[in-house]
C-alpha cells in the first residue's frame, strides 16, 4: 500500500529533486565562492564575503527598492481592476465564453513580446499612444526619468490583470448564492451586501491571488530587458535584472547567487509571516 503511494510520487519527487533541489543547493554553494564564469580551475571558498558585499551594495538595495515599488503599484492596481472585471463578468449573460477568452488572452502571451509591444506602442516617435496624446496637447515621455518604473508597472497590469480576474472569478463563483439573496431581502443595498458579505467570503481567494501575483511580479525581467534595460540610470533596475547583469554581464556568478539568495530569504520571511497570520485568523 505504502509502496504504491511512494511509487506514484517517485517521478515527481525525483524530477523536483533534480530540477529544483539540487540546483538550489548548488546555488547556495556557489554563493559562498568567488566563482567567475571566466575563471579556470576550482573557485575559492570565500564564505559569507559575497553576502556581506551584496548587503552593503547600494545598487542592490536600489534594485530591491525599485522592485518593491513596482510590485506594490502593479499588484494593487491589478487587484482592484481584476475584482471589478470579475464582478462584471460574473453577472454577464450573453457572449460569456468569448468575452472571457478575449479578456484572459494577455496573460498567455510571452512577456518579452508584451514588453516589446509596449516599447513600440509607447515610443515617442513611432508609437500610437504618444501620437494620440500629442494630438490633444499632452506630452508625456513614458520611458523617461521618474516615469519609466510606473510605465513598467502598467505593462504588468495589462498582462496580468487577467490572471487576477481568473482567480477572483473562480472565487466569486464558489460563494454560496442564498446568503446573498437573504441579504437582498434583509434590506442591504448592493454596496453593503458586497462589503459585508461578498468581500469577507472572498478574502481567502483574494489573499492567495495577491500572494501568487506578488511572488511572480518580483521576478520581473522581460519587461525591463525589452524596454529600458535598467535605465534611465538604474531607475528600472529590478532585482532579477540586477542579478542577471551581475552574473551574465559581469560574470560574477558567486555574487549573483548571493543576491538571489538574499531575495529568496526576504521573500520566504514574508511568506512565513503571512501564513502565520492566515492560520491565526482561520483558527479564530
Amino acid at each position, binding site marked *: 500500500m505504502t509502496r*504504491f503511494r511512494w511509487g*506514484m*510520487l517517485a*517521478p515527481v519527487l525525483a*524530477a*523536483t529533486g533534480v*530540477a*529544483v533541489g*539540487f*540546483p*538550489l543547493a548548488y*546555488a547556495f554553494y*556557489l554563493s559562498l565562492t568567488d*566563482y567567475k564564469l571566466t575563471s579556470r580551475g576550482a573557485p575559492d571558498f570565500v564564505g559569507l564575503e559575497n553576502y556581506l558585499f551584496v548587503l552593503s551594495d547600494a545598487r542592490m538595495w536600489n534594485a530591491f527598492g525599485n522592485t518593491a515599488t513596482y510590485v506594490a503599484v502593479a499588484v494593487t492596481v491589478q487587484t482592484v481592476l481584476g475584482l471589478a*472585471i470579475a464582478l*462584471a*463578468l460574473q*453577472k*454577464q449573460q450573453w457572449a460569456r465564453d468569448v*468575452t*472571457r477568452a*478575449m*479578456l*484572459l*488572452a494577455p496573460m*498567455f502571451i*510571452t*512577456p*518579452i*513580446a508584451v514588453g*516589446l*509591444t509596449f*516599447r*513600440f*506602442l509607447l515610443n515617442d516617435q513611432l508609437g500610437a499612444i504618444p*501620437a494620440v496624446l500629442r494630438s490633444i496637447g499632452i506630452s508625456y515621455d513614458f520611458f523617461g526619468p521618474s516615469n519609466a518604473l510606473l510605465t513598467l508597472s502598467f505593462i504588468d497590469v*495589462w498582462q496580468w490583470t487577467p490572471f487576477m480576474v*481568473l482567480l477572483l472569478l*473562480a472565487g466569486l*463563483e*464558489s460563494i454560496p448564492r442564498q446568503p446573498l439573496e437573504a441579504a437582498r431581502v434583509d434590506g442591504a443595498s448592493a454596496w453593503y451586501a458586497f462589503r459585508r458579505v461578498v468581500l469577507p467570503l472572498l478574502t*481567502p*481567494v483574494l489573499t492567495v*491571488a495577491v500572494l*501568487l501575483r506578488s*511572488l*511572480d511580479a518580483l*521576478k520581473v*525581467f*522581460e519587461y525591463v530587458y525589452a524596454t529600458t534595460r535598467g535605465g534611465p540610470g538604474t531607475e528600472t533596475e529590478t532585482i*532579477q535584472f540586477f542579478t*542577471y547583469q551581475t552574473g551574465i554581464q559581469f560574470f560574477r556568478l558567486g555574487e*549573483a*547567487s548571493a543576491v*538571489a539568495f538574499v*531575495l529568496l530569504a526576504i*521573500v*520566504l520571511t514574508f*511568506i512565513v509571516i503571512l*501564513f502565520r497570520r492566515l492560520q491565526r485568523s482561520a483558527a479564530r
Partner: protein
Amino acid sequence: MTKGVNALAAARILLLSAAAVVVAFPLLWVAIASLKSPAQLNDPGLILFLPNLENWARVLEAGILNAAGRSAFVATVTVAFSVVAGSMGAYAISAYKAGGSATRFGILAAQVLPPAVLVFPFLTMAYALNINNTYVPIIFAHLSFVLPVITWFLIGFFDAVPRSLEEQARVDGFSRFAAFRLVVLPQVLPGIGAAAIFGFTLSWNDMFYGLILAPPRETILPVAISAFNTFRGVELGAMSAAIIIAVVPVVIASFFIQRRLVQGISGGAVKF
C-alpha cells in the same frame, strides 16, 4: 428602484467594453505594424494602406519558424514529462494525502524561487557535464517551474473523482495502478488537457532560461523575437511580425482552455 439596477448594468458593460479595447488595441496595432514598410512605420497614425509582406518575409528568412519549432520541442518534452509525473504525483497527493498539507504548500513554494537563483547552477552544471550544447539544461530548467504548477493544478481535479470509482475497480480485480490508469485517469482527462496547454504556454513563453541556457545559435522563440531589438535600432516591422507569430498560437489555445482553467483553479486554489 430598477433604475439603480440599470445604472449598474451600464457601468458593467462600459467596464467590459473598455477592457476589451485595452486588450485588443496593442495587439491589433502590432499586427497592422507588421504589414507596414519602414517608411510607413514612421507614421503611427497610418491605418489604411496597402499591406506589405516584406516584414514577414524577413522574419521567416531569419529563421523565426525554426526558433518556434525549438520552443515547441522544449515545451512538448517538458509538458509530456510533467503530465506523466505530475498526474501520478497529484493522484498520490489527492488520494493518499501523501506528504500531508505541507506538500501542497511546498509545491507552491517552488514557484517562489526566482529563476535567477537556479539559472547559474544549471549553467555551471551544464558546462561541467559538457551538455551545454544540448537541450537538456533548458528542459530541466523548464521542468523546475512547469512540473510543480501542473501537479498542483491536477490535485484539484483528482480530488473531484469519487474514491468509490477506484474501489469498485479494485474489487472487480484490477491492480492499484491499473485502476488508476483505466478508471481514474479518464475522469481527469479534461483537467490534464487544460494543464498540458497551460504548461505548454508557460514553457513557450519563458525567456530568462532560454536566454542563458539554450544551445548557442539555436535560440528559442522569445529570444529570437528580442533579437530584433538590437542596439543598432529596433527592426520594428520584423519584430512586429515575430511578435504576432509568438502571440497567435497561444491566444488561440487560451480560447480553448479558459473554462477548464476556472474549473481547475476553483478546485485547487480556492481550497486553501
